[in-house]
């Protein structure tokens, strides 16, 4: 570029639109937060922030994995079922103590991810179809393993679900640590770089000699592991394994968080900060509606509006 002369109001307008697309989700969180500070009783209290943080943690963790799948120009619909599978496994293996049980649950999630990734990378099944298959199969498997809700009485699990350090719940700390870790993976590792390249242009990545299959499988294994971990935390919080309802529609919440956070569905870009903000935005929105006791149908409408807005923004971004 020889000249970078930015002139005219219209140029400013395009810049504004772009800024809004990139940072709109943060603005949304700030606005919703401030609105709540003014209109919601007892909103500004440590206890309330703890509640919101604890509730958002599982969605956020699932969304982190989802962001990786979407960044590879795919999607992972099996996350909700992986959570259910994870909760079943926890219940089945808790006899060995919580650590072993958590390990088994996460391994189970990774196996589902491995199956997803293999179908996509080796067989060439489209991600939406492959992960849909495992979404159905995973839930079925979870119910075969544990046909009905079962209480968890292990004190370790209970502590994980409701305890904390210096007033910050473990769930929030774990979610934050994972967000930082995933951001690090995306930005600083060869895996992350390759993932983005593959998501942006698969043929180019292939010709550049990247291990496309390995990276794709890695992305889905990570997504499965994160979903399983989210299942563990949700189980700990509930102090019960409920494979029937745990994680239902979780894939939609996660996709919403990722897309609202500015990660394009067309792949090649992953915004972890945005994903965190997207999850928080939806949590705040739901909390606001519930706290003000608005009819449940309003919650659904509000979520629909956010999704439409996000898809609209994604469309604008897709135009480049």
């Amino acid at each position: 570029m020889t000249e970078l002369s930015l002139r005219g109001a219209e140029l400013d307008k395009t810049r504004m639109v772009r800024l809004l697309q990139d940072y709109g989700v943060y603005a949304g969180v700030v606005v919703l937060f401030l609105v709540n500070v003014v209109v919601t009783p007892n909103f500004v209290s440590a206890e309330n922030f703890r509640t919101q943080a604890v509730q958002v943690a599982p969605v956020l963790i699932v969304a982190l994995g989802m962001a990786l799948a979407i960044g590879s120009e795919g999607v992972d619909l099996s996350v909700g079922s992986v959570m259910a599978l994870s909760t079943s496994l926890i219940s089945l293996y808790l006899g060995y103590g919580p650590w072993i049980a958590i390990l088994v649950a996460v391994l189970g999630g990774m196996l589902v991810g491995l199956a997803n990734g293999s179908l996509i990378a080796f067989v060439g099944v489209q991600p939406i179809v492959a992960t849909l298959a495992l979404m159905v199969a995973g839930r079925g498997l979870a119910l075969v393993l544990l046909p009905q809700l079962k209480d968890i009485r292990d004190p370790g699990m209970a502590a994980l679900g409701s305890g904390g350090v210096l007033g910050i719940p473990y769930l929030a700390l774990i979610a934050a640590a994972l967000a930082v870790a995933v951001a690090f993976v995306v930005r600083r590792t060869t895996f992350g770089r390759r993932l983005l390249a593959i998501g942006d242009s698969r043929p180019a990545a292939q010709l550049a000699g990247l291990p496309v299959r390995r990276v794709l499988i890695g992305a889905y294994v990570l997504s499965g592991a994160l979903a399983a971990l989210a299942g563990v935390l949700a189980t700990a919080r509930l102090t019960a394994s409920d494979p029937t309802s745990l994680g239902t529609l979780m894939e939609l919440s996660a996709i919403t968080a990722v897309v609202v956070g500015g990660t394009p569905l067309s792949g090649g870009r992953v915004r972890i900060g945005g994903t965190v903000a997207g999850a928080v935005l939806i949590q705040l929105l739901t909390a606001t509606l519930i706290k003000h006791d608005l009819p449940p149908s309003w919650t659904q409408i509000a979520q629909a509006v956010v999704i439409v807005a996000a898809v609209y923004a994604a469309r604008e971004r897709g135009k480049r």
Partner: protein
Amino acid sequence: MSQDHTTPVRTGAVLVADEVTKAFPGALALDRVSFAARAGEVHALIGENGAGKSTLIKVLTGVYAPDAGTLTYGGEPVRFGTPLDAQHAGISTIYQEVNLVPLLSVARNLFLGREPRTRLGLIDFRRMHRETDAALRELGVRVDVTRPLRSLGVGAQQMVALARAVAVDARVVIMDEPTSSLEPREVRTLFGVIRMLRERGIAVVYVSHRLDELYEVCDAVTVLRDGRVVHTGPLAGLDRLRLVSLMLGRDMGEVRSEGATKFSGDHDPGTQPVLSAEELSLRHTLHGVSVRVRPGEVVGLGGLLGSGRSETAKAIAGALAPDSGRVVVAGAPVRTGSTPAAIRAGISLLPEDRKAEGIVPGLSVRENIALAALPALSRFGLVDEARIDAVVDTFVRRLRIKASSPRQRVGELSGGNQQKVLLARWLAMQPKVLLLDEPTRGIDVGAKAEVQGLVDELAADGLGVLLISSDMEELVEGSDRVVVLKDGAVVAELTGADVTEDALLHAIAATGEAAA
């Protein structure tokens, strides 16, 4: 046709852009550009990449709305809301990249949106196929019109696009580098069609980097540079050097000193081949092709479109799995059909389709350069940013890559700079063999010279280079040796003093007769 007598200069002007301005974030693409396409005139639109040609065409065809200025069509001010509006009004465009529907049949593409109907309102396929066949024959193309478009070669696809433009009774036909993927024979046909269009009183806007073509077919010329019109007028009487200097905005002497291409001529190759591909065969495409390249040697792959040049390169680079044949690099056999194996062995391929297979458009210049070499630039799976910066910095300077910063997205760069980024990506791998498939296609004159100079330099450094180019001049001047392919087999090899355009033409022509 309405005549505007108040502005006699524009008599006969069909499509006029007046003081058109268009800005994008970070760049002013068009700055008060005026342009007029007149009936019965072939008007060349030229300029380096990034000069604003593509943007102007997109404004003329309704893809972009201008930020300021007006469009006049047939004497009336117009505002095309969509490309479809412009198309319906009679403005046809043939883009650099064929923008038809690859999965539909040739005939469906030709009649897209205006399919003939039977009395029952269904598509009249028989009539459609018959008329498509006739229309394509008129342009000298004979293909099965029921096949999906993507199964055709790029050249044939282009002719389908052209046939479509002619068929819709356009008043203005805009061609954006129509010859870049055509064979010489097809180019002749194209020029015939262009002259026919001119006879019919159609205004033709012709965008090309090939100066020979301009002088052969165009009447007038408009030169753009940095989003502004630097010259407009009749082409006759404007000599080549003047034209080039207008485009480049450089001194006359400087252009002359650079010569036609940047290649310096012969190299001093070693004796043992660094690359030998033996008897590569691939169903329908390659029949026992053997190529050897010695260190420091530039071997050209000649032949017409579809002769198997790109396929040979891809088979060597592991992007295509040959049915049989061997690839040996520096004495060690390479597993075929695996890109990573080929890359590890030191083979690098600059693919023909730069945009789809080469660059990763959403990533930055920096990430693109470092992409293939990531393992070497990482420790324990963590990217070593400092080393990447060093490598990127070296190549950006060495290859003179023009980007606002290494963080700029490659998709935003001009074609020439994209190509340099790709070269940098491979040079960072310290390859032994470089396969260049149309390295200068679709990039502007200045960048073309630079790329050619680089290839020369690399060969001088001892790299083996396999060069594929449709530009005969480039092929002949750049190569030490030319292997000529025809229908997937080697038919001739030109060496030493025989490497001339004349000999190459003869080789292609002779075999053509032999094969027929």
